[in-house]
């Protein structure tokens, strides 16, 4: 089941030659994604904070919570179009998609489990023996195989069938209203330098003028690079399915898109001041809603695996 690269999209970053996609690998990854066996006390699965219907993020939670109801310091990120992603996490701490699951797995406020113990649990589970065998022709679970299977699943979580995509491809269902067309023009003028089409992220780390939350003191990318220039910089997230990925920003401080736009027109810390009238904000939001991709949000292949 090779990945279909949407027309006009760049070449994926992920090296598929090292992890050829198979139906069986995808299925193993999907089972792992929805299984709380990954956490210390079998209470938290990946899906606890990454729900499909909301673009695989934790809806309604500014800061995501994990094991023992412990609260983290950031809003969980969305999971989509990761084959094109050059780095992962709000601060880019993770350098390869394969290694991403290790972070929540071992975080003391998320799953708080050791990889070696997870592998032990998987090897003791009859269900996984069969799944690993069908995916890798070897029933023994290892860290490498588990991580490759996770990538097999997440690499398929691709969103490219929104109303916006149909508009660009001039397909049925892609007719924009005048308001949406105006919103797209405004978007291209004011937002596209950081959120360029078609991925709606430039994949960089940017400082967007948010005042620091003194209870979190999150320095963002600086935490990883230790370079002062990276202070308060966070990864530019994709805007696809933004209608459902609220709350917004790395700490989920904004609940509504209008609040996000108000921040961008009020801050004086951007390279160029963004000026938008109230009507223009409404148009811009109308455009952002065209990025909703129901085919992706309700694709049964990505949902909880019912036996």
């Amino acid at each position, binding site marked *: 089941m090779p990945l279909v690269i949407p027309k006009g999209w760049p070449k994926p970053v992920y090296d598929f030659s090292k992890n050829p996609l198979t139906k069986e690998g995808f299925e193993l990854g999907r089972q792992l994604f929805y299984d709380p066996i990954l956490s210390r006390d079998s209470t938290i699965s990946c899906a606890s904070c990454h729900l499909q219907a909301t673009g695989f993020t934790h809806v309604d939670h500014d800061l995501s919570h994990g094991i023992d109801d412990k609260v983290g310091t950031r809003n969980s990120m969305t999971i989509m179009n990761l084959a094109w992603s050059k780095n992962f996490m709000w601060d880019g701490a*993770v350098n390869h998609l394969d290694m991403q699951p290790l972070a929540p797995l071992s975080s003391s406020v998320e799953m708080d489990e050791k*990889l070696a113990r997870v592998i032990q649990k998987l090897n003791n589970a009859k269900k996984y023996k069969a799944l690993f065998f069908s995916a890798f022709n070897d029933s023994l679970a290892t860290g*490498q195989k588990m*991580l490759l299977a996770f990538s097999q699943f997440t690499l398929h979580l691709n969103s490219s069938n929104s109303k916006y995509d149909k508009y660009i491809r001039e397909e049925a269902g892609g007719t924009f209203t005048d308001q949406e067309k105006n919103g797209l023009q405004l978007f291209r003028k004011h937002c596209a330098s950081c959120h360029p089409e078609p991925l709606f992220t430039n994949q960089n780390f940017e400082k967007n003028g948010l005042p620091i939350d003194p209870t979190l003191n999150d320095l963002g990318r600086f935490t990883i690079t230790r370079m002062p220039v990276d202070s308060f910089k966070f990864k530019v997230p994709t805007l696809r399915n933004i209608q459902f990925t609220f709350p917004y920003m790395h700490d989920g401080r904004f609940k509504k898109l209008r609040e996000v736009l108000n921040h961008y027109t009020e801050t004086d810390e951007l390279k160029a001041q963004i000026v938008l009238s109230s009507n223009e904000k409404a148009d811009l939001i109308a455009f952002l809603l065209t990025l909703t991709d129901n085919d992706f949000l309700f694709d049964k292949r990505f949902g909880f695996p019912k036996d």
Partner: protein
Amino acid sequence: MSIKPGILLFILSYFAYPATAQLSILPIFDGRPIAENTWYVSTKGDSVQFDNIRFYLSNIQFEMDDNTWIKDTVSAHLIDVFEPASLHIITQKIDLKRLKTIHFNLGIDSLINVSGALGGDLDPQKGMYWAWQSGYINLKIEGRSPLPLRIFYPHHLCF
């Protein structure tokens, strides 16, 4: 309590076998072989005991007398000082009479560090991978010292 860099030494030696070369590692501290449950005195006069010493030897290459280089078929070996089997690395066939130099890295290079999920000794389940920030732990030293407090000290290094 700090361990002065350089006091942990590794002796590399090799023995001729009909088909393969064996690289043996003898970890020593202050001239004495490192053993479990044994007290050593550091150059600063602190008593130290080691519970866990693990590190990677990677990119082993044999430079021959005709200036050709022969690469080890395994990219990295995880050495556990208290796992005797890991202290002997069997490599491919080498003509020892023509061997000039052995080259190796202590730790993992930047290329392997960005290569995604790897297996064998590089499988993250070996406990030599940092989860919160991508990258291998090159060298891990854990142990204890009675002075000034009875503390457990882990030193995990990357470059």
